[in-house]
């Protein structure tokens, strides 16, 4: 569908642009001795007709793009189209003049018209080329708008994918168990219930905000980890204790968001939860020269199943692939189990904001 015909507002603007053209044409075609009415019967209808004929330029513009190797051929096509249109238009005008002739007070309208035909033909070609130029602009604007829309759609899709990944990462067990804890606390410890709500809200909000970023300072990630641990402390009580050893020099190092938190979650789920007495999680974040080293250690039930190396699993695989994407083979992810301690060790270059890697 033609972009002007399908949009009334655009069509109205287009036709208004033709009013001055109709006026100019009237002046050119006027016979000195005859009244204005005669010219008004001829020039405005011709202008109106040509306004619609020029709409055909759109199709010519589509098949004759003004870029690429075929530009010369495009110009040729355009010239031919303008000549043909103008010729048809002049001919139709002549017929109209002949039809009007008998009704005129002074005869010879069609003869006069014929003398002006060459000028009118040139004007017709010029108008057609102007219309073509307008159409090229219109097409370019539409294409630009389409491209912008596509980019926006892509951005929305990427964001949705991120959120989906995030949803998959926040363990539903964690969420529902936390809600259950709140439910339990409401009567026995209303203050505690409120605190738990706030912790949970803070944790969820931080994971959404941080998760949308590509990289965050380690200190932000550790804040998220602390919120998570606060919540889990409410659930596990004395069974969960944590020893941290965080070098403040590391705080500016950049990490992909939600890198450490899922590992802490694994340590609790596969390490602390199966133990009747619980245990202690160790978290070390250290600078080793230009590298950042993160070590997470948790106890495991020596009588039960070993810590699932792959199953610890989905989280660990995720960490590995994200670090590989950022640091290629400069990132090391090591997993080991000795006696009843399970350890995950991450080592990758410490890059701060503004630095290039």
């Amino acid at each position: 569908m033609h972009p002007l015909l399908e949009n009334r507002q655009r069509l109205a603007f287009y036709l208004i642009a033709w009013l001055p053209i109709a006026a100019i044409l009237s002046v050119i075609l006027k016979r000195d001795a005859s009244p204005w009415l005669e010219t008004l019967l001829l020039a405005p209808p011709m202008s109106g007709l040509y306004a619609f004929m020029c709409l055909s330029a759109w199709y010519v513009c589509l098949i004759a793009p003004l870029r690429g190797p075929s530009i010369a051929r495009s110009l040729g096509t355009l010239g031919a189209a303008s000549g043909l249109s103008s010729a048809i238009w002049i001919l139709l005008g002549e017929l109209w003049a002949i039809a009007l002739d008998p009704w005129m007070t002074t005869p010879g309208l069609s003869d006069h018209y014929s003398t002006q035909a060459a000028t009118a033909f040139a004007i017709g070609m010029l108008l057609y080329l102007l219309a073509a130029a307008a159409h090229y602009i219109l097409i370019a604007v539409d294409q630009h708008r389409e491209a912008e829309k596509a980019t926006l759609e892509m951005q929305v899709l990427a964001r949705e994918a991120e959120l989906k990944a995030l949803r998959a990462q926040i363990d539903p067990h964690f969420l529902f168990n936390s809600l259950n804890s709140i439910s339990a606390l409401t009567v026995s410890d209303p203050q505690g219930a409120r605190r738990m709500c706030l912790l949970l809200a803070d944790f969820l909000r931080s994971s959404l905000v941080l998760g949308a970023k590509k990289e965050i300072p380690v200190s932000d990630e550790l804040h998220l980890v602390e919120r998570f641990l606060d919540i889990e402390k409410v659930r596990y009580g004395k069974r969960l204790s944590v020893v941290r050893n965080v070098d403040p020099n590391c705080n500016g190092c950049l990490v992909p968001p939600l890198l450490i938190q899922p590992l802490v979650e694994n340590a609790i789920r596969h390490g602390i939860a199966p133990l009747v007495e619980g245990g202690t999680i160790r978290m070390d974040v250290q600078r080793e020269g230009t590298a950042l080293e993160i070590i997470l250690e948790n106890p495991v039930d020596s009588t039960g199943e070993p810590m699932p190396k792959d199953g610890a699993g989905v989280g660990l695989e995720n960490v590995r692939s994200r670090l590989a994407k950022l640091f290629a083979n400069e990132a090391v992810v090591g997993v080991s189990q000795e006696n009843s301690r399970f350890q995950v060790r991450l080592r990758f270059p410490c890059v701060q904001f503004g630095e290039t890697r």
Partner: protein
Amino acid sequence: MTAIRIVVADDEDLARSLVREYLKDSIDVQIVAECANGFQAVKAVTELKPDLLLLDIQMPRLDGFEVLDLVGRETNVIFITAYDQYAIRAFDVHAVDYLLKPFSAERLAEALDRARRKIAKGESTTPTALATEGRAPGTKQDRILIRDGSDVHVIPVAKIDYVEAQDDYVCYRAEGKRLLKQQTLADAEAVLDAARFVRIHRSYILNVDRLAKLELYAKDSHAAILRDGTRLPVSRSGYSRLNALIG
């Protein structure tokens, strides 16, 4: 009306306190024990013989399914879980009642009503197939649990030599010990990893790692000689299953 006697098993203090609070005002319900892990739950059920067990699935030592496996025939069970899609599907298939955390006092009361009716009719709730179906696929059990009084023996699957049917029981042979469990040989076969355990005979399942050699015993029948010298009969279909596995 006598009160229903309930055992609550959940590893989280807060989760247990919630159940306690919900049941505080019910006169016809009595909590006789609270357990923080699976072993405690098995012990409590064996010793106290409650009418009903409120059982969380995720617990240390023994999970809810393992507890059910050990005491399922003796008591009615209402499962509790936060989120466990496979378990929930299995519960729905077998019409086993469950509560999703967080649950309301009304929801708990409904479940208790249903359990009360079942107890009055003398029905037992829980089919044994539940444990195998309720676990996520690919998480085959790597140990066998056998209850001896209120004690629980844990046999790692790799330590089992063979399993033998004995009337209403199944006898597990591991590290020179014989441990009896009340189940059918088909139940045992369903639990054991088919890549390692073969039904060689109507009455025997063999751990193929223990097989030393096969002897032709009579026409159409073989005997399996284990590494420790034990001889087990191998039926014709058992022989072809064994061949299919070790090829």
